[in-house]
């Protein structure tokens, strides 16, 4: 059973990466693989969601942008690209490829033109474009191109700040406010839905069966909830546990599901959610708000007038500076730790798989060897990532709980809490150091 599942994963991983290689090779005469582009394509966001095993066809998603004049414009992401059939000169095979195209939207008598930027400083984002027509505008473009010190000849593939190149013509670009339902946004909604269903399955069990213990999936879910609630929240926050439990449990399960969904390669998964800094940033900001808004007087007193010798805090506020810095570094560490761990895991798997295509240049033997080694290591890394997914969700929740409990001290039983803080901080530093070493191979 297990080996069967493994072979399916293996096949999926292998197949998923074959198509981008082909697509890339057909457009690229050198036949090499653009490792960086493929990697960032997989780690990044997108306006459509790829149908399994195809890089050409995408599930269309709504693009919602605010044009330069303040109008909100919404259109389907399928209009951003068209499918073109190209004949591979070497093999004679017809290859389909998605090519960006200009989208023209008529609204209130005005026409707006949008483009999925290629050669631009906003690569892979939707930009509003304006043609460069008048002489003065052309002069501006020339000046901008001369100012830019990026290598490459003007007119060919050179990124000019504020301009986008499409079909050999430069257009003035405007990056609109972009609230599109992208792949990552849809994945967020799917993850939220999964979390809701998981939690509600337990709630449904309780309303149906009273105090009977649930079995199987619901039982596992309940075990996880109990593990976090009693093991982390209750044991740290004691009588305040019920006040913060909903927030912390939501954090844990949301992160866990996002992590795991990110590891699934095809449709409902495949979006690198927690490996995206925007997602972890929001989570960290939430923790920051919860910690500081509900903080006690004692907590603020410890920050602005800590129990240290006077010379450390009076003429030059050294301690105050450190403490205030600490308020921000704690959630920042949460944000970066989760982001780096998850992105690192994805990156390693992608790199290992891309090794196969890099090694094709060295002949059949090297390719065969690298296939075996890459797949073994990829599977190992994916298995490790499942573990890391859980650990990172756990660590995030654990540290958030500790930060909240530190901000909830009332100074009466100081010694006890002081101990908790001192115990927790070295652990955190160690975790950060570990993160650093884990990233090293990347």
């Amino acid at each position, binding site marked *: 059973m297990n080996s069967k599942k493994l072979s399916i994963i293996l096949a999926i991983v292998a197949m998923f990466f074959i198509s981008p290689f082909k697509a890339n090779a057909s457009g690229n005469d050198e036949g090499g693989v653009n490792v960086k582009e493929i990697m960032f394509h997989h780690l990044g966001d997108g306006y459509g969601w790829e149908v399994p095993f195809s890089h050409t066809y995408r599930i269309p998603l709504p693009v919602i942008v605010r044009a330069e004049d303040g109008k909100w414009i919404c259109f389907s992401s399928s209009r951003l690209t068209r499918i073109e059939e190209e004949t591979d000169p070497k093999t004679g095979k017809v290859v389909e490829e998605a090519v960006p195209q200009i989208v023209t939207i008529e609204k209130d008598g005005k026409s707006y033109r949008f483009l999925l930027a290629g050669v631009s400083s906003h690569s892979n984002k939707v930009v509003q474009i304006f043609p460069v027509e008048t002489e003065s505008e052309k002069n501006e473009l020339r000046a901008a191109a001369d100012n830019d010190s990026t290598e490459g000849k003007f007119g060919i593939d050179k990124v000019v700040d504020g301009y986008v190149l499409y079909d050999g013509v430069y257009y003035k670009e405007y990056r609109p406010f972009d609230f599109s339902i992208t792949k990552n946004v849809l994945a967020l909604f799917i993850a*939220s839905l999964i979390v809701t269903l998981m939690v509600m399955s337990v709630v449904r069990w309780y309303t149906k069966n009273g105090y009977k213990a649930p079995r199987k999936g619901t039982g596992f879910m309940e075990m996880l909830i109990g593990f976090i609630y009693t093991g982390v929240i209750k044991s740290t926050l004691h009588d305040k546990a019920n006040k913060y439990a909903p927030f912390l449990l939501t954090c844990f399960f949301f992160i866990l599901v996002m992590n795991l969904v990110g590891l699934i390669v095809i449709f409902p998964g495949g979006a690198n959610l927690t490996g995206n800094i925007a997602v972890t940033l929001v989570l960290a900001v939430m923790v920051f708000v919860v910690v500081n808004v509900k903080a006690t007087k004692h907590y603020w007193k410890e920050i602005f007038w800590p129990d240290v010798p006077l010379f450390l805090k009076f003429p030059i506020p050294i301690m105050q500076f450190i403490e205030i810095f600490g308020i921000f570094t704690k959630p920042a560490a949460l944000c970066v730790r989760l982001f780096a761990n998850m992105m690192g895991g994805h990156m390693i798997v992608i790199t290992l798989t891309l090794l196969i295509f890099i090694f094709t240049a060295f002949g059949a033997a090297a390719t065969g060897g690298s296939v075996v080694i890459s797949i073994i290591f990829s599977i190992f890394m994916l298995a490790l990532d499942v573990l890391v997914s859980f650990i990172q969700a756990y660590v995030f929740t654990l540290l958030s709980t500790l930060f909240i409990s530190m901000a909830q001290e009332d100074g009466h039983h100081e010694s006890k809490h002081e101990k908790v803080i001192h115990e927790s901080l070295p652990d955190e530093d160690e975790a950060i150091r570990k993160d650093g070493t884990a990233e090293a191979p990347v």
Partner: protein
Amino acid sequence: MELFTPELGLVFWMFIAFIILFFVLAKWGWPVIIKNMDKRADTIDKGVEYAREAKAQLDSARADAQKFLDDARKQQADILRDAAKMKSQIIEEAKKEASEEAKKVMDAAKVSIEQSRKEAELQFRDEVSKFSLEIAEKMVRNQLKSDKAQTELVDKLLDEIEKN
């Protein structure tokens, strides 16, 4: 780097998604689960407590029963001992009575035997004296058939008288 700059749109949607998820779960999810988990834990605790109490009660009941049993056994032993004692006493008394009775009967028997012996003796003496007189009479008559014998006897008797 695209990866390290947070995208405004994604931040916005993440915020919305998290807030909605949080409020939905905080209202209908977590409190119900936590309440029920606590309730079940309480139920289990109560069950254990109940079982412990029941066991204690059972133990005490068992001890009571044992005590009753012991008492009964002791009583039984006492009764048996008393009974044995009584038995031996009764036997003793019976023996004593019997021996007394026997002695009485014997004494009575002895007396009657003595009496009858004396009577018999008396009778026997009478009989013997009668027989001896008859025998003597017959012998004397026999001996004194001849005259000579008679004379001789007279002589002898006379001699004797003379001697006295």
